[in-house]
């Protein structure tokens, strides 16, 4: 599903964010990216949906070399990759329903399809009754559920999560992880960057550890350290 061959990313010609990374992630896997701040976790994720372009090496997503994708094709790549962030990135002037619907409007889906899909996905993430609320009226956990709903509404092949529990208390984080696990079990590959030791140690999934841009550990059913 995802394959990196000797991938390096260097910012401003000096800071090496990722160094000769070679790794393969199978379809349906759940992978934790761990490492201290600045170790290259976010860069790793940003390379996968072509928010960044690798300076060296080749990245395959679903068998396609995404580095050679012309820029007008990039949106179509992103339709197959959902993304979730620590800060949710919800639009404050739109309701829960509108925030999720926006993901479908933006790719030109017809209104009828949107009216059908949005309530379904809101039920899935457990926010069926909050569709008219605005983000500032929701708790952090609820906001993250909205952002997951938005990321998953297209049933992407891959879900990228950059510290999705970084702003949440432990109890709320558990709920979010259950949701991501459920999404993973539908066959979606999940790659999640995290600092949350408890979560990694509890879930016992594949762990890839980065240190100053290098992959220093790649362990099936691993722990945080």
């Amino acid at each position, binding site marked *: 599903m995802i394959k990196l061959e000797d991938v390096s990313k260097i910012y401003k010609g000096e800071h090496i964010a990722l160094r000769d990374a070679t790794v393969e992630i199978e379809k349906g896997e759940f992978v934790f990216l761990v490492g201290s701040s600045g170790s290259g976790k976010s860069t790793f994720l940003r390379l996968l949906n072509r928010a960044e372009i690798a300076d060296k090496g080749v990245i395959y997503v679903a*068998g396609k070399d995404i580095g050679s994708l012309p820029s007008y094709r990039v949106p179509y790549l992103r339709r197959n990759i959902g993304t979730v962030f620590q800060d949710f990135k919800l639009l404050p002037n739109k309701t829960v329903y509108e925030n999720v619907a926006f993901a479908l409007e933006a*790719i030109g889906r017809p209104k009828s399809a949107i009216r059908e899909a949005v309530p379904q996905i809101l039920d899935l993430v457990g926010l069926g009754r909050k569709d008219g609320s605005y983000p500032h009226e929701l708790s952090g956990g609820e906001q993250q559920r909205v952002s997951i709903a938005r990321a998953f509404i297209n049933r992407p092949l891959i879900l990228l999560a950059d510290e999705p529990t970084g702003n949440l208390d432990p109890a709320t984080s558990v709920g979010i992880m259950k949701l991501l696990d459920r999404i993973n079990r539908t066959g979606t590959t999940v790659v999640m960057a995290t600092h949350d030791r408890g979560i990694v140690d509890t879930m016992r999934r594949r762990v890839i550890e980065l240190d100053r841009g290098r992959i220093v550990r790649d362990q099936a059913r691993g722990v945080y350290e």
Partner: protein
Amino acid sequence: MAGSFAIRLAASTNEQKGSGPDLVAIRLDYVAKETGSNLVRNITLTLASVLTVAIALAFVGVSYLIGVGIEGSFGGLQSDVRMFVYMNPTATQDQIDSVRKALEKSPQVDSIVFLDQAETYKEFKRLFKDQPDFVESIDPKELPQSFRIKPTSTDSEVVSAVGKQFEDLPGVYRVEYASKLASDIKRSLDTLNGWITKFGLALIAVSVMLIFNTIRTAVFARRREIEVMRLVGASNWFIRLPFIVEGMVQGLIGAIVASGLTWSFDVLWKRNFVNQRGLDLLNNITWESSNLWIAVFTVLTVGAVAGAIGSGVAVGRYLRV
């Protein structure tokens, strides 16, 4: 297993491809809604852009009409044409050709233009359009063909000395000299109108910059939406189009106001100056209603294009997709 999912990805992207170019897939109501809310959101900047476009294009429209009027009222007189050689209506082609040769050979002649009977008649009709009976009574064949001559010197004595050389050539009816005063007036009016045009063009440049700035601000105001749109895979044109349309709408609204101003100028000018006594200089400067339509059409086109350029550059610069 990766292979089958590659196919799934390929199939889903092909499906997008099959639905035609990005532009077609974008719903018009979406673009209209987004453009509308952007225009309202930045109302002060939008008004500044629209008003500048309106003033700029009004100058362009009016200067075009005045330019047409000046050309008409001075009978196609080029400010440098100082001498006319009229041929007899009965002059033979040989006679005309030999006069042309003599003119071309003369070192004091800079350039010549020949008006045949058809062109002369056209101009004659225009000059006397208020007297259709008179125009009716004239047969085009009775009109003299003529050469319009731009001498190398503007000194009237030198010019008349040059003219004397051609008076006695066979077939020549007579030689006439443009009044220096008329030429000078026309030259002044041309200069004045040239400045109006330049001022209008400079203001168009200012309008483009203002529209550029308005769109840049709009892009900045909507950066969160844009980020999310990129994230969920909105096509580049889906993100850009509302901004470009916004710029074009600003240009067009300005152009519509400018068209109104140009039209008002047309009405006021014709009511107050044309064919009024006591304003010898101005009452001949007029134009056809077709010229007004050309002016309006040009103003609208330039407005839309200026808007598209301003917003297109802003989007290209500040909207990385």
